[in-house]
């Protein structure tokens, strides 16, 4: 039994296995994600009732909350895969870590941008140096720091390890962001969805938000797979299975 688990673990760590498996998952994941995002967005923008206090500007929540959510979850995914790479020296997890950085940075940017355009009609300002917003900006810098580290070094074990350590150090920031609205007096409204307890939202508004969050999860893993697949080919380009794959593709054309 134990033996079986370890073969599973090692196969999961094999770039080749990952590349071949994801090939089959990609069409399904793309279709599900596209449907969820489309239905969630149309529902949220055109069909959900407007907020009693904020009016229609609240509809930005359907982009802002899922993007922020995945920006934070994505940081953990990046940091954990870096840690797995450090501890078990699994090549694939370093590739996943590297792939997670641009996605996380882009989603953090989306969270900040949609927050700013939501802030203008709601608070009267695009930007305030509020605890939630400032800690989110730090998250963007952490992502950008890891991206910069990746571009400074070429692919090497040292660069993988350095990024993984930087990623792990940055995890301190994630609970600070999450808890910032409770710890400090902030302009930013408290969490709409809590891990414990019911959401502070009408079900008619909440249903499309839930669809968008699940859709963003799908989108996150979809792009993570796409980036990782490119990274695998890049790093394994001397490997015989990659060579065979390319030769086969050329023969088909």
């Amino acid at each position: 039994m134990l033996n079986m688990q370890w073969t599973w673990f090692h196969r999961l760590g094999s770039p080749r296995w990952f590349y071949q498996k994801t090939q089959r998952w990609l069409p399904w994941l793309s279709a599900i994600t596209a449907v969820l995002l489309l239905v969630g967005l149309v529902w949220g923008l055109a069909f959900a009732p407007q907020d009693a206090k904020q009016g229609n500007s609240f509809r930005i929540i359907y982009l802002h909350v899922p993007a922020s959510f995945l920006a934070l979850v994505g940081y953990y995914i990046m940091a954990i895969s870096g840690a797995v790479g450090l501890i078990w020296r699994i090549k694939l997890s370093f590739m996943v870590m590297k792939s997670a950085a641009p996605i996380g940075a882009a989603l953090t940017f989306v969270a900040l941008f949609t927050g700013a355009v939501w802030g203008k009609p709601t608070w009267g300002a695009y930007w305030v140096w509020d605890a939630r917003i400032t800690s989110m900006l730090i998250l963007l810098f952490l992502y950008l720091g890891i991206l910069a580290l990746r571009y400074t070094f070429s692919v090497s074990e040292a660069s993988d390890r350095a990024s993984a350590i930087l990623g792990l150090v940055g995890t301190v920031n994630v609970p600070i962001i999450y808890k910032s609205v409770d710890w400090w007096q902030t302009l930013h409204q408290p969490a709409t969805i809590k891990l414990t307890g019911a959401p502070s939202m009408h079900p008619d508004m909440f249903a499309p938000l839930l669809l968008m969050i699940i859709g963003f999860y799908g989108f996150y893993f979809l792009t993570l797979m796409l980036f990782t697949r490119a990274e695998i080919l890049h790093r394994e380009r001397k490997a015989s299975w990659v060579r065979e794959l390319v030769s086969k593709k050329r023969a088909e054309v």
Partner: protein
Amino acid sequence: MYFDSVYQLITMDGHGVYVWTAVVVTLVVLVSLIVKPLRQHHKILQTIAREIELEQLVKTTASQQEATDASNP
């Protein structure tokens, strides 16, 4: 639909500018997150294909060279 008309959906009582800006920017970022790795993937496949071609070319010229060397001692 929650709104009475398409016009209302677009203007959203004055909030339309903010909401639609957020939507457009988000969609542009999301689409670029799909396009970028696909392009990278395509480029790497091309690079590897070129490398393989080059290696085969080197091999064939080397064997041809050997053949000419053997026939003209």
